[in-house]
């Protein structure tokens, strides 16, 4: 019986692949893609203002609500934050990735690799919690700053409008630091992988042709590592855009998209508006992925 099945699959290799693919495609296709469609569908429904119940008729009304100044601010604020976090992550991740990929050898390399990988997998909430401890008024940062007699500097920074606040833990600066901390490992690893794949002889050739270390970096290393950088930025950008827990715990009362989604679907019971909000990151990411694919970044994932 089994032998007969084995023979049939040999005669029809296409059938075999189809057989392998069916369960995962059913799962991802029905549960995941199906849910995405459910989300899309919900965003075209609306809330009846009097009863507060969902009206199951297709309408663009909910999307118009996104354009109100308050909601527009939320979207803009989120995208700016995602850009800032992505840029900072690239800047900080690059030296770590470059050193790990090109300079560290043997044990040191393993150490660096683990050092970059562990934070990726360590607990999201614990990381946030750690920063709550660090940024608290009575926490380590204030202790250090006061110990060094630099309290006025911190106060000056916090006095800035918009990004400042009463203390670090309720300011945008705090939100930014924690988002950066939480999502930066997703930049380091793809970047490191891309840098590993830059062939050594190319760098030697550039050296040989008289380029300084800085020129080699700018004209050879960075262009070749670009796909990895884009791959990393897909993660940092997307994950920052959708995060609602970090800004909820550390930050000011002004909301981000994720918080809006969570609030509207939860206590407010306005699932259509929550869905419409959630479509925004999808659209932004669709453009981003389309661009990344054209630059060949998928191979670096």
């Amino acid at each position, binding site marked *: 019986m089994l032998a007969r099945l*084995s*023979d049939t699959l*040999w*005669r029809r290799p296409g059938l075999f692949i189809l057989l392998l693919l069916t369960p995962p495609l059913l799962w991802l296709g029905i549960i995941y893609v199906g849910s995405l469609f459910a989300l899309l569908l919900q965003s075209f429904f609306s809330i009846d203002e009097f009863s507060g119940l969902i009206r199951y008729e297709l309408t663009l009304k909910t999307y118009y609500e996104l354009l109100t100044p308050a909601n527009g601010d939320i979207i803009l604020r989120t995208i700016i934050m995602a850009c800032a976090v992505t840029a900072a992550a690239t800047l900080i991740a690059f030296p770590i990735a470059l050193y790990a990929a090109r300079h560290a050898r043997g044990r040191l390399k393993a150490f660096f690799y683990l050092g970059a990988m562990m934070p990726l997998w360590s607990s999201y909430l614990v990381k946030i919690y750690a920063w709550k401890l660090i940024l608290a008024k009575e926490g380590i940062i204030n202790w250090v700053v006061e110990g060094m007699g630099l309290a006025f500097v911190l106060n000056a920074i916090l006095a800035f409008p918009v990004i400042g606040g009463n203390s670090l833990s309720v300011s945008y600066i705090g939100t930014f630091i924690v988002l950066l901390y939480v999502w930066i490992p997703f930049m380091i690893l793809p970047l490191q992988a891309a840098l590993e794949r830059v062939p050594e002889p190319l760098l030697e050739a550039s050296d040989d042709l008289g380029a300084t270390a800085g020129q080699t970096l700018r004209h050879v290393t960075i262009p070749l590592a670009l796909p990895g950088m884009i791959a990393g930025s897909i993660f940092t950008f997307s994950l920052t855009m959708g995060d609602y827990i970090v800004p909820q715990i550390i930050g000011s009362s002004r909301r981000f998209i994720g918080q809006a989604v969570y609030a509207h679907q939860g206590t407010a019971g306005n699932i259509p508006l929550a869905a419409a909000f959630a479509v925004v990151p999808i659209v932004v990411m669709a453009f981003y992925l389309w661009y990344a694919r054209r630059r060949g970044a998928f191979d670096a994932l």
Partner: protein
Amino acid sequence: MTVAVAFENTSRHFGAVVAVDRVDLVIEEGSFFAMLGPSGSGKTTCLRLISGFERPSEGLIRIFGEDSNDIPPNRRPVNTVFQDYALFPHLDVDDNVAYGLMVRGVPRGRRKDEAGRMLELVKLGGYGRRKPSELSGGQRQRVALARALINRPRVLLLDEPLGALDLKLREQMQDELKAIQETLGITFIFVTHDQGEALSMADQIAVMNEGRVIQTGSPREIYEHPRTRFVADFVGSSNVFPPEVSVSFGEAEAWSSLRPETVSLAPPGTGRVDGHVVSVRYLGASKRVTIAVRDHLVAAIIAADSPVPDQGGGVSLVWPAGSFHVMDDD
């Protein structure tokens, strides 16, 4: 003579690409058969058609007379030595070699004995407990050979068997493969792009190009009587002349080939045609002289110690009657 493997008008397409194009081929039992051709000529696909990893798009493969199109690889009396050896990295040498017996349910004790015997045959006795990663390239190949032979196949397929070995090892393995084939008396079919390997090991050669078999015959036939320009050019490095040049050399008006080693040099005016020396390349036991005759270049391979004029010097070419070989025009 029994026919071991026969291709009957066999083709294999991959989408729009025709890898094997209406091949008719008969491989006799007990022969050491070479499929020779440049990369992309379809020779490896032919091998995979015999082992069963590809199925003909059209035509038939017969193995010992039986239509094998519907027989999967694991039930063909054929085993393969893969180009990259394909040794199972998680099994030691003994288990690699005994794998074919294990999947047939042969008890452990007999498997071990038989694997030991096979390792002796390939001169690797005592290596059974090593892992493939602990072996050299030449040793890995011997293990692959022992593993393929343990099922006592009637036909052994070898895909570029010597391709990954260095020169010295290659020559040694050529002799050993030949010896093993003679000991076992089974059919060996191997694929190679190296004409020297094909000429020295095989007793029959099929030269392939662009999915077609261009010529089959003994090494001598192939070498001395290439049927087409392609064969003349690919097997050895013949001088190939278009009809008008052949005529000007006093031969028949047809595409013809002339082996460089049949050409010898004489003082100007004393040979068949005159020319001047363009270059001389030293090859060890011999040297290769390129001579310009009017607009045409002719290569000659002569003994290393024979005198040659300096570059640009006049020289006359001599070849025995009948050295020119007339070919098909393709």
